[in-house]
């Protein structure tokens, strides 16, 4: 599992201009838009905000120049990086919900996060392999390590990861 680029300019080529960003967004395919929305939903869980707030903020930061878009970066990857970074920022910063209660609020949010992750893992009680994979992911395991840990063939492992993702998505949809 690799962390996405965060939209910081990495080479000498100038980043995309506002007009170029606008054009790139205009010509996004339905699948690309869908992927951005789905990814936003994953990170919005960490914040008190909705997925749409996250991709709207990512778009805004891209067009107003706060996030530079390196030229060779695909649009979905760029959005991924920016949304992840914003979610992390919103989570760490004193958000409006926490402002009144200061540090206590931040502590409570950490507890809520842990609780949220625990709930996701517990929802897979009927699938021990999926649960094992999820616990390892939550603890920071990545790539090959996870495949080995699961004891599955690469194809079965991919299929299991897809089932896990779909289940998590449905779990979140049910909560709304």
């Amino acid at each position, binding site marked *: *599992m*690799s*962390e996405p680029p965060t939209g910081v300019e990495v080479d000498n080529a100038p980043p*995309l*201009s*506002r007009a*170029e960003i*606008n*054009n*790139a967004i205009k*010509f996004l*395919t*339905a*699948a690309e*838009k*869908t*992927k*951005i929305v*789905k*990814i936003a939903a*994953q*990170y919005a*869980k*960490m914040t008190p905000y909705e997925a*749409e707030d996250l*991709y*709207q903020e990512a*778009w*805004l930061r891209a*067009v*107003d120049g706060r996030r530079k*878009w390196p*030229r*060779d*970066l*695909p*649009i*979905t*990857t760029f959005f991924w990086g920016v949304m*992840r970074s914003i*979610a*992390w920022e919103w989570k760490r910063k004193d958000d409006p919900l926490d402002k009144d209660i200061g540090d206590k609020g931040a502590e409570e949010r950490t507890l809520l*996060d*842990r609780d*949220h*992750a*625990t709930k*996701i*893992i*517990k929802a897979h009680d009927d699938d021990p392999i999926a649960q094992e994979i999820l616990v390892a*992911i*939550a*603890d*920071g395991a990545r790539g090959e390590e996870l495949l080995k840990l699961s004891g599955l063939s690469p194809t079965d492992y991919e299929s299991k*990861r*897809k089932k896990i*993702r779909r289940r*998590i*998505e449905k779990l979140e*949809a049910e909560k709304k």
Partner: protein
Amino acid sequence: MSTKPDALLNLADAMAEDILNTPDDEVLREVEEDFGDRRALANKFDQILERAEKQVFESARFAALAPSPQVRSSVLDLPISLRDETIRRVKGILNLASRLSEFLSSLTPRTLAWSATAAAVATLVPAAVITAVVVKEQGPPSGQQMAEVRKGEKGDRFQMEAVFAPQPAEVTSAGAFDEGIGGPRTQMPVAAPQEATRKLSDEEIAALVAGGRQLMIADDIHNARLVLQQAADAGNATAALELGQTYDPLAPSATVRWGVQHIPDRRTFDVVMARKWYEKARDLGSAEAAVRLEKLKSVPD
């Protein structure tokens, strides 16, 4: 069962990576399975960004107006000097229009067509109100004022209108841009650009450049050019360079990049105009303009 503090971030990272690696068709199938419509999430994305774009566009319009009590309405294409109180009233009306549009866009798809109509009405009503307020407060233009404008003499409101109106040379060479709406407007009587130009403050020029950029973001290329041209005519190299780019088929926005399908609207390109504004930018000290002029040498007029 306990998890680490970053557990949720780790889980989100893993899921995001899986989503990115899922084939496009499969992702759309999943959406169909969940919402009964393959485009449900894509439509939501469009709706949210369209709304955000409108908000940015409106903020940009007012940001460009903030330094001086002048309203440059892209609806009217007519900058008008207004009192602060009048601006507040107009802003209030526009905010109301924005809220109305937002409410309508949150309705079911069946009613979305109505929201488009309502948004158009919400845009036109403030335009009518601005006109009505100005006519009421400043009175309609007298016959003498009209005659003065025709002679190219200096009358504040109408002088500014002349600045916004396309120059004959520009209309002729960029005529393709207007062909879809009744052909080039070569018959429009306007004052010569040199006569119409007035001295702008640095603050006003910066506001015009910022406004031009925001109009480009909103894909309103026609008004972006008009706004940038004011700053370029006032001697701003950046504005001249950016104005040239709007006509330049080789400018960065006109190429295919980042694996994203990009189809530029070729009707907006005009090599002659691109050269003209790059030359102006170069003369005003832009090194970038000189580079772009060199690149344009390979492109026939």
